[in-house]
Every structure is written in structure tokens, then in C-alpha cells.
């Protein structure tokens, strides 16, 4: 699948934003975070901006961006529509939560309840994003049980890394955020490796024979394509560049998204003040780069069944 930059950016940015909102909505009402309204502002603004910028970026992927509002209508059947509805709906309790926390320094009572509600909505939004891909049967690398957990794990990891970084401006040596950041990175790493192992080993359900209903006479192979030049199907679904560099790109993603953030979180866990803050900042930056590469690979490694009509043997 063609990795459109707008979608790569959308899924990584809004994934991190909604995951951070999820953590804030859960932890602040429980009194696990600094009570300061300024902290609430910094953390919630980061979450809101990431989520909103991601959503706006996804609109640029559309052929008719001015009609984007229509996408809220088909939530009964479409995961994309559900994702749109949930992402906007999340902002309603999140706004109450944010106003209560930032302007009144309150994170309990109704405000806390709205925090919990925002956390639930944010988690559902992330699940919907994952389901957009997991519901597509023609793409084996997406239509499997690892995709939604992957979106959760990678989002949580980004959320924890961001939270640890922001918390350090208020608490010189926070106790639990770097530890959970480290654990979430290791968990995300495990889930991504499990996903890679799965797509490398599970067998392709569709073949050129099943795609053409041929094969009674023997093996089926493409003789001639229907057209000599590219078309929309090949541009969108027949993307081939990344597969050539699969091993190298996975290594870069592994190092930038998981190994470096894990080591930097460990440094942050063991240090206070400036060093801890710098380590947390670099962990965020490395993870951001790694997640973009990981998401790019998620698209580039996905093979659509339409390629069976253009020379692929099994997909």
C-alpha cells in the first residue's frame, strides 16, 4: 500500500495525542499528577494539538476535503466514520476536564468524571483507528489480530514518553512516569516484533489461482498486464519501494522507536533534573522518528490482493 505522508502523520500524531489524553484523563483525577493548572495546560495542550493536527492532516488526504464533515454520518457500518465521530466526541468531556483543571485547578468531582470519560473516548478512538485497517480483508498484513493491540501499544508508549517529559518540568525526579514509560516501550517493542513475526510467517490466503478462478490445468502466471503504464491501482496498492529495504528499515524503526527510547527512559528513571529532562526529551524525539518509520513500513509492507492481477503469486 502506498504510504501517504498525511496518513502516516495522522495515525502517529493523533495516536500519541489521544493516548496522552487517555493517560491524563485517568491519572489526574486519581491525583497521580501535579495538580498545577499550568501543568494541566501544558499536558492537555500537547495532547489536543497532536490529536487535532493529526486529524487535520488526515483531511488533506481527501480528494474533497471540504466535504469531510460528511464522514460523520455512517458510524453504523464504517470504522472510518466511527473514528471520526469518536475523535470529535472525545473533545467534549476533554474540554470540560481541561477547563476544570487548567482554569480552576480541579481534577475531582464532575471534572474528574469528565477526565475518565475523555480517557474512555480516547481509547475507543485509538481502537477505531486500528479497526479501519484491521477490517480490510484484502490486506493480510492489516486484517489480523495484532493490528489493534499494536495501535494501542504504540500510542501508549508515545503517551507515556510525552507524559514523562512534561512532568519533569514540574517534578525534578518523578517516580512512576519514567518506569511506566520504560515498560510501555518494552511492551510496544514486543507487540511490534510479534506483529512482524506474524506477517512474516502466516500464509497468504489468496493466490493468483483463486483470484482468477483458474488453475485446473496447472500453475497460473501472468502473461501480459492489461496496460503498459501505471494506473491508480498500481500507484495506490502496488507500492514496492519499501519491501526492497524491509530489513534495513525495520532495524532503523527498532532502534529509533524502541531501543533508544528504552535506554533513554532508563537514564531518565535513574537521573533527576537536567539530565533526566534531556534524556526524556531525546526519548520523545527518537520515538517520534521511529514511529513515523514504523507507520510508513506498516503501509509499505502491506500487500493488497489486487496485485495478484499484476504478477503477484500469493498475497
Amino acid at each position, binding site marked *: 500500500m502506498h504510504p501517504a505522508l498525511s496518513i502516516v502523520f495522522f495515525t502517529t500524531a493523533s495516536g500519541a495525542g489521544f493516548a496522552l489524553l487517555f493517560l491524563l484523563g485517568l491519572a489526574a483525577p486519581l491525583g497521580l499528577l501535579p495538580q498545577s493548572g499550568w501543568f494541566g495546560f501544558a499536558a492537555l495542550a500537547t495532547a489536543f494539538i497532536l490529536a487535532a493536527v493529526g486529524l487535520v492532516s488526515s483531511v488533506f488526504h481527501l*480528494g474533497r476535503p471540504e466535504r469531510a464533515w460528511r464522514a460523520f454520518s455512517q458510524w453504523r457500518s464504517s470504522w472510518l*466514520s466511527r473514528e471520526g465521530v469518536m475523535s470529535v466526541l472525545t473533545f467534549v468531556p476533554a474540554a470540560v476536564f481541561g477547563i476544570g483543571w487548567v482554569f480552576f485547578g480541579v481534577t475531582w468531582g464532575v471534572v474528574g468524571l469528565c477526565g475518565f470519560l475523555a480517557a474512555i473516548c480516547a481509547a475507543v478512538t485509538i481502537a477505531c483507528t486500528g479497526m479501519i485497517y484491521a477490517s*480490510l480483508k484484502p490486506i493480510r498484513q492489516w486484517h489480523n489480530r495484532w493490528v489493534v493491540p499494536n495501535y494501542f501499544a504504540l500510542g501508549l508508549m508515545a503517551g507515556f514518553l510525552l507524559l514523562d517529559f512534561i512532568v519533569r518540568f514540574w517534578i525534578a525526579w518523578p517516580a512512576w512516569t519514567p518506569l511506566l514509560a520504560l515498560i510501555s516501550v518494552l511492551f510496544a517493542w514486543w507487540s511490534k516484533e510479534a506483529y512482524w513475526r506474524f506477517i512474516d510467517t502466516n500464509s497468504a490466503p489468496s493466490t493468483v489461482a483463486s483470484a482468477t478462478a483458474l488453475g485446473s490445468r*496447472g500453475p497460473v502466471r501472468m*502473461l501480459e498486464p492489461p496496460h503498459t503504464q501505471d494506473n491508480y491501482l498500481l500507484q495506490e496498492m502496488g507500492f514496492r519501494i519499501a519491501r526492497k529495504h524491509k530489513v534495513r528499515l525495520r532495524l532503523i524503526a527498532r532502534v529509533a522507536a524502541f531501543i533508544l527510547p528504552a535506554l533513554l527512559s532508563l537514564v531518565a528513571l535513574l537521573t533527576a533534573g537536567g539530565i533526566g529532562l534531556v534524556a526524556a526529551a531525546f526519548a520523545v524525539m527518537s520515538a517520534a522518528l521511529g514511529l513515523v518509520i514504523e507507520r510508513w513500513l506498516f503501509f509499505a509492507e502491506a500487500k493488497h*490482493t489486487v496485485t495478484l492481477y499484476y504478477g503477484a503469486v500469493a498475497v
Partner: protein
Amino acid sequence: MTDLPARYPGQTQLGLVIDLDLCVGCHACATACKEWNTGGHMAPLPDFNAYGDGAWGVWFNRVHSFEEGEGDGARTVHFPKSCLHCEDAACVTVCPTGASYKRAEDGIVLVNESLCIGCKLCSWACPYGAREFDADEGVMKKCTLCIDRIYNDNLAPEERQPACVFVCPTKARFFGDLGDPNSAVSELVAARGGKDLMPELGYRPTNKYLPPRRARPYVDDLAPQPLTALMAEAQSRADVANPLLRWVDRLLSR
């Protein structure tokens, strides 16, 4: 509404049956489709760099060519492919706007261009590559089963069929109601063992493909057969009893 229409027994399911034994890969169906539809319901079907390198455009029907088998047993199979108007059309249910829909009355899958936001998700959800994006208008386009021909009172009755079916010089394409088990197309599918494409994905496509019949085995030492046939024919001529007919036969055989 992107929910699929409720099903009931005997529901009309208009679609195509394609005989892979008869298709000669002439691309007439593809060009006739392009010609009709660039002025039809989903018009236009744009082309980009139409006269240079890197030419590409929107087509609803494309003719692929495959080889099946090895050595003497192998054959070339030309394989036209257009929208299969699936019963479980995921291209419809994934649509976030309601632009993509399946008609309850005849099962045709269409796009309402004025609702489409061009998110392309339907084209990802289609395993068969039936949908192509119109980069000019920013909306998705697809085969309409020539909805503007098959119900068109301005056309002569014999022309009220999809352009690809109407034009096919080898009559390899058939159009009809595949929801009715007694229709001509359904009987043809039953008689020839018509098949679904990628049945493992569960889209339940309406269009069916008739696989090529098994060829008689080719045996080399039957090569002189034509000569034997000629001799047999000469023999049968010699057997003509009537002398007048025998004379006419000799005269005409000269």
C-alpha cells in the same frame, strides 16, 4: 446509507457472466466501456498525459492475460475484470459518507459522486481493484453495470445491456439476473461450473467466471488425420449411386 440492503430470497442481482473459453483478449469490452462511460452516469473518465509517456486514466474494465498449466497442456487465458457487484460489498460498508451504496432493487453497486469525499478507503476494501480514483474531481469512480443503458428507453431493446456485453465480438460476456436461479445466466453458470473470484474472502461476488473447458489431449501421431479425412470424403463421393450426381460431383470437384 452504507448499510447493505436487506436480503430476501429471489432478490434481483444483476451481473455479468464471463466465458474465459471464448474471450480472445481483444480489449473491445474495455474500450467500449471507456467510450460509453466517459459520457455516462459516472462521466467523465479522465486521462492524464494521454499522449505521452506515463499515460494513465480511469477505466472500469481491464483485460488481463494469464497462462495456465505447463508445456503442451498450457493455455493462454484472457481475463476481463470489472466490478463484480458483490453481495457482501465491503466497499459499501467501509464508506464513511454514504456515497458508496448497493441498490436494493437490482444489486448494482454505485457511487454518489456528490457525497464522495475521496478518502479512497473503498478502493482499499475491494480485493478485485474495481474502483479507480478520479484525480481531477477528487472522487471515486466505478463500473455502473451501464445503469444508463440497461434501463434506457431511448435505446433499442437489444441495446439495453452493458456496453461491454453488447460489443463483445465473440459473445464471451453475458448479462442477466444472477439472483434468479432460472435465468439464462444462472443456468449457464450451473451448466459450466461458473466460479467466484477469491471466494476465500467471503465477498460473494455476483459476477461469475466460466473456466475454460478441458481441451482434448493433443497427440502428435494423429497428425495425418486431415489426409485420412479427405480420402474418406473421396470414398463417400465414389459411393454416390446416381450417375448424374456422380457426373456433377466429378465436374464440381475439378
